[in-house]
């Protein structure tokens, strides 16, 4: 069955900073709908007062990876898009995938090895089969 890999989203923003305007709009309007649509993600909203670090959206996944995305000077819709993108990701590292295919059963009839199509020593050929 499908298990969503996002465990929790922490929204850290300041209630007075100018670049956190999108984050504040997000919290006022859209955050409740988002939390209702994704009941398996815990959403924490923590405003830290005063001019502090930049507003950030921190996502924690089931395999322990923590991913932070800056949301300074982003509109509310962009933050919603970011949040859904993080919710649909898994916690694997974002690195270049070497090949886009993978299979657990590389061969169905048996892998070829140098002896596959050679006849076995035991098969006897020729007129020797007829009784003398």
């Amino acid at each position, binding site marked *: *069955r*499908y*298990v*969503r890999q996002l*465990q*929790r989203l*922490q929204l850290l923003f300041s209630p007075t900073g100018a670049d956190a305007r999108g984050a504040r709009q997000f919290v006022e309007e859209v955050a409740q709908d988002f939390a209702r649509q994704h*009941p*398996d*993600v*815990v959403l*924490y909203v*923590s405003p830290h007062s005063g001019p502090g670090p930049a507003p950030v959206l921190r996502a924690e996944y*089931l*395999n322990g990876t923590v991913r932070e995305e800056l949301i300074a000077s982003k509109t509310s819709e962009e933050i919603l898009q970011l949040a859904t993108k993080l919710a649909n990701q898994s916690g694997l590292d974002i690195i270049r995938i070497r090949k886009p295919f993978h299979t*657990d*059963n590389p061969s*169905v*009839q048996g892998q070829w090895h*140098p*002896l596959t199509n*050679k006849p*076995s*020593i*035991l098969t006897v050929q020729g007129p020797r089969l007829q009784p003398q």
Partner: protein
Amino acid sequence: RRSEKPNWDYHAEIQAFSHRLQENFALDLLKTAFVNPCYVESEEARRRQLGLDKDAVALQLQDNTGLAERGLRFARAYLAQCFEGAYPQLPAKGIEALVNFLTSQELVSYVAQNLSIQDLALCRDFPAPPDVLQRTFLAVIGALLESSGPERAGIFVRDFFIPQLIGKDLFEIWEVVNPMGLLLEELTKRNVSAPEPRITRQLGVSTVLPVYFVGLYCDKKILAEGPGETLLAAEEEAARVALRKLYGYTENRRPWDYSKPKQGLAAEKAISSN
């Protein structure tokens, strides 16, 4: 520990956990499932150290040993039933080996870690040792059994344990010391004569790395053949290949059937056989 870092709401985390697994849990059963006996002892010791009265020292929490036992019994019975249905030729020892592997500490704690149980489980040490994780996960299964009934619990066990068998070979899980003897027993049960080993192919006999293919023939019909470095190793490998074919656990068997089960009797039998 995650529960001691900022931004932690236990009730919300437990609700999210039950939604993540797409199961309806009775929340109080689930909360008792996460309480381990070592946690209860450490909490009582800490309260006694802080100098509280005797009444306040005794915590009102039940721990999860009862639920864990019930979960373990149900999981073992259900898995044994699944394997008996899927591989009818497999002997009882093989099924027991498979079930033991699936309920072993490493596997269960690996599954529990990837489902974030290590954050929710209340225990004394950090990070939680694997037997604590195993006990907690089995208690979660027990809680699911109590709240939703044996059918849903059976589907849950099937969805999370059986994919751990993908890509694994039978004899990696089940240690067989004498495959030839086992093969002879199986063949006498089916009234087939004893197998005769013959060399089928050989390569590089006089080098450092010879390869011998030994085939097992019953009544001059081929049963199986296997490769090996020496003649003895090749014969043993051929016996193992023959056993895999007989038990139906080859690499090209049909994959496991995960469709919705329609019979309710199977799960009832699992409960009544405990």
